[in-house]
């Protein structure tokens, strides 16, 4: 049977892609961010996942506002990265696993989550950068992938309580797959940041610390927040923490924090990173 070995939750910022493309990892501005990944690399060296399920939000690459799913699941053999408008170099294609995808889709819908299925899907920085940061030396991402996109763009967004339940269902879906695969769940986005309006540049260190703490042993505590609460406390884009909550909710065993890093700022964002190990 497939087994979820843990979760990696991380911020995703387009500027990281720019920093990688320019080789700025040792630059004083970037070093505290990139060094934070050493602990992830140590964990991956022994954990050796076969599949990464990536819970993220699309930023207007795959989905436009004409048709915008709340939850969308990839079901392709391959996922391409593409220009998001800034002409940055694109990353090599990602391998999918359609059989696993359709199993997850069947299970989620049977569990009353009426997701959108995507047999073609281009993936943006929120999907590609965390995988690149996990395996920086690999030319191509070495694991199979399964994209799970959550709407954090156009309100109404799914509530934290809904995301928690969705994450639980996602965990059940993955762990009922018959093949022996080791699966890591990624949750990307956040932590506190706001790009728009006169409140641009808003960061809330105390709220981020609370979220990171609760996510380890008491994730259901975050389900009492409304989306408006998250906008107020974490900023308009800080709501992406719902992707962390979804990923965390997929872990059903005893969860142990293996590694974490928190650094302000990367671009306009308070960047957070955690490795949570799932013990049966």
């Amino acid at each position: 049977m497939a087994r979820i070995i843990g979760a990696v939750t991380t911020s995703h910022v387009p500027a990281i892609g720019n920093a990688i493309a320019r080789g700025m990892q040792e630059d004083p501005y970037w070093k505290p961010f990139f060094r934070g990944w050493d602990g992830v690399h140590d964990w991956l060296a022994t954990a050796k996942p076969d599949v990464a399920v990536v819970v993220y939000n699309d930023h207007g690459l795959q989905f436009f506002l004409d048709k915008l799913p709340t939850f969308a699941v990839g079901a392709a053999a391959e996922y391409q990265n593409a220009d998001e408008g800034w002409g940055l170099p694109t990353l090599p294609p990602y391998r999918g696993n359609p059989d696993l995808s359709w199993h997850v889709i069947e299970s989620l819908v049977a569990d009353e989550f009426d997701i959108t299925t995507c047999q073609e899907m281009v993936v943006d920085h929120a999907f590609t950068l965390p995988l690149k940061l996990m395996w920086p030396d690999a030319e191509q991402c070495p694991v199979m992938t399964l994209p799970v996109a959550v709407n954090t763009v156009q309100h109404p967004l799914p509530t934290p309580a809904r995301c928690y339940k969705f994450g639980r269902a996602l965990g059940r879906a993955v762990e009922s797959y018959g093949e022996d695969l080791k699966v890591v769940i990624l949750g990307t986005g956040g932590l506190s940041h706001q790009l728009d309006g006169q409140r641009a540049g808003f960061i809330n260190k105390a709220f981020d610390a609370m979220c990171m703490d609760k996510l380890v042993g008491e994730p259901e505590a975050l389900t009492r927040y409304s989306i408006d609460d998250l906008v107020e406390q974490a900023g308009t884009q800080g709501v992406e923490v719902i992707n962390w909550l979804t990923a965390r909710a997929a872990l059903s065993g005893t969860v142990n924090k293996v590694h974490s890093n928190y650094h302000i700022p990367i671009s306009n964002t308070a960047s957070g990173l955690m490795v949570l190990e799932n013990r049966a």
Partner: protein
Amino acid sequence: MASRPRYAHRNIPGTTIFDGVQAQKGYALNKMCYSFNSAENRAAFLADEEAYCRKFGLSEVQRKAIAARDVLGLIAEGGNVYYLAKFAGIFNLNVQDLGALQTGMSVEAFRQKLVEAAR
């Protein structure tokens, strides 16, 4: 007159929540910005901004806000920041430049404000 959506949002100073009201108002504007994913379309915009805006059916207020690079004006007109970031990228402006423009700060002062958020 159409009613507001049932779920009125909390009033958070300096913040516009991108909901159904904004998404309708900004549809043409965001659709134009979505087209900027393509380098060819970015070049077409630069070749004739006004014609490109008309092609997408932007309102006069939206066209003026585009011409003036008025980020707050574009948000008021329904622009979503993820799409506006693609517009800004045409002029090599990143989200920190956008932050400075929206808060009336210099880019340096805006960056410093972010660094100070770590304290």
